[in-house]
């Protein structure tokens, strides 16, 4: 065994077999490499798209053996389909207001049982007759923060995982966040010329907004607001701003006649089931004498604010 040449064959053999073993594994890996990921995720994209579409554009539907309608939020036990679009005609299946979301429907949506929700929105995969629920997160956001309705943040599902591919779709919507009365300057009346009186009947779940357009005057300004002879504190009881485009600009008192003045009043000030007398004090404004005074509740309509509905789905 003095000659060491023999070793070369063994060495070469070892090398080549290592190489071949690695190659076999590699070849076996190739198809798996292409399979992973692609199939599942494209289907998730469309699941997210469908879920968002149904929520934003459909009114939902309920039905039992005798009756049916789109106002499923009043009939949660007979609910057949979930949709958030507002509808003023609950008997007809067709909605004419996609992108307009109803507050009552959103609130009921927060209460729907988890399994029913997954079943109804089709947020599951059916593999060999076994259901696999997808992970999901549905939220309505305003300026990046979940919208709060009736002191509940509108967000369902689990927090988005960071380690997984997530299919996400965002829709621009208008959400009913409370009520608003749009009043013209000429409609306002008061006992004193510069003091508008508005009767408000409580209670309210959300803050109430009063919007005044075309308030005429020269060098006029807003002084303060009074409820039943109690002067309200700015920023805690109410905020006053003017509307430009979608955004609210702070108002520092003085007004021009083209301003769209908005007054957002805290609903806790009107939390009893009774009449409240709201006085809005201005300076240099001449209003028609009353009574009659304007009643907020007769002029109020739902207030819709822009928001983003986001649906995220993952495996």
């Amino acid at each position, binding site marked *: *065994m003095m*000659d060491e*040449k*023999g070793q070369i*064959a063994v060495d*070469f*053999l070892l090398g*080549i*077999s290592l190489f*071949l073993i690695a*190659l*076999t594994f590699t*070849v*076996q890996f*190739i*198809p*798996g490499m*292409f*399979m992973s990921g*692609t*199939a*599942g995720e*494209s*289907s998730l994209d*469309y*699941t997210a*798209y*469908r*879920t968002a*579409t*149904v929520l934003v*554009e*459909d009114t939902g*539907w309920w*039905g039992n053996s005798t009756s049916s309608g789109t106002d499923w939020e009043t009939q949660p036990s007979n609910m*057949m*389909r*979930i949709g958030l679009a507002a509808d003023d005609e609950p008997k*007809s*299946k*067709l909605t004419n207001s*996609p992108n307009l979301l109803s507050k009552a429907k959103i609130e009921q949506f927060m209460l729907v049982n988890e399994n029913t929700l997954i*079943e*109804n*929105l*089709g*947020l*599951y*995969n*059916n*593999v060999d007759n076994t259901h696999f629920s997808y992970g999901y997160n549905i939220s309505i956001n305003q300026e990046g923060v979940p919208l709060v309705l009736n002191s509940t943040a509108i967000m369902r599902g689990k927090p988005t995982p960071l380690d997984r591919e997530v299919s996400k779709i965002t829709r621009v919507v208008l959400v009913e966040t409370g009520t608003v009365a749009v009043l013209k300057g000429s409609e306002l009346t008061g006992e004193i010329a510069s003091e508008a009186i508005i009767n408000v009947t409580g209670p309210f779940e959300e803050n109430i907004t009063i919007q005044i357009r075309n308030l005429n005057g020269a060098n006029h300004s807003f002084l303060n607001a009074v409820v039943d002879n109690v002067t309200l504190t700015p920023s805690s009881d109410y905020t006053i701003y003017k509307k430009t485009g979608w955004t609210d600009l702070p108002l520092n008192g003085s007004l021009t006649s083209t301003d769209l003045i908005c007054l957002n009043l805290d609903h806790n000030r009107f939390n009893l089931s009774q009449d409240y007398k709201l006085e809005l004090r201005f300076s240099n404004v001449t209003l028609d004498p009353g009574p009659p005074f304007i009643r907020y509740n007769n002029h109020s309509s739902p207030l819709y604010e822009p928001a983003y509905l986001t649906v995220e789905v993952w495996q």
Partner: protein
Amino acid sequence: MRKLSKNEEGVSILFEYILFSLICIGFFMIITTNSDDIFMKTPNEAVMQDEMSDIGNMMSTMITDMYLILPENGYIDTEYRIPAKAGREEYMINADIAYTDQIIEVISSSSGKKVRVTIGGIATTMPINGTALSSSTNHVISYDSRR
């Protein structure tokens, strides 16, 4: 004998050949027996899974979209194009089970491979039915309020 045992070259070369051939034969045996699986079936399976779930999703998305704009009195029909083959096989789209299961099924006729797609809660309020074969030329989804 002394001479023979002194020179080991012949043995080492013989051994080298034998071992080397054995390893190579082993390797090629593994590759040949698995080649159909590795190079044909698995990629085809992957492609089919992809395409079939894609097609199922297209159907489901189209039905959802269409449902949302249905006329109260009238009809709507839309043509769609689907590839004639998924992978190397023809397939059938089956919506007949939609009423009970809220699902659209894409089945390959030759291998029996099935992909199912949910359709987002519409089936419970509107009966959806029909089947489509990938090999036929015209594909239409239609709705008529008077039917």
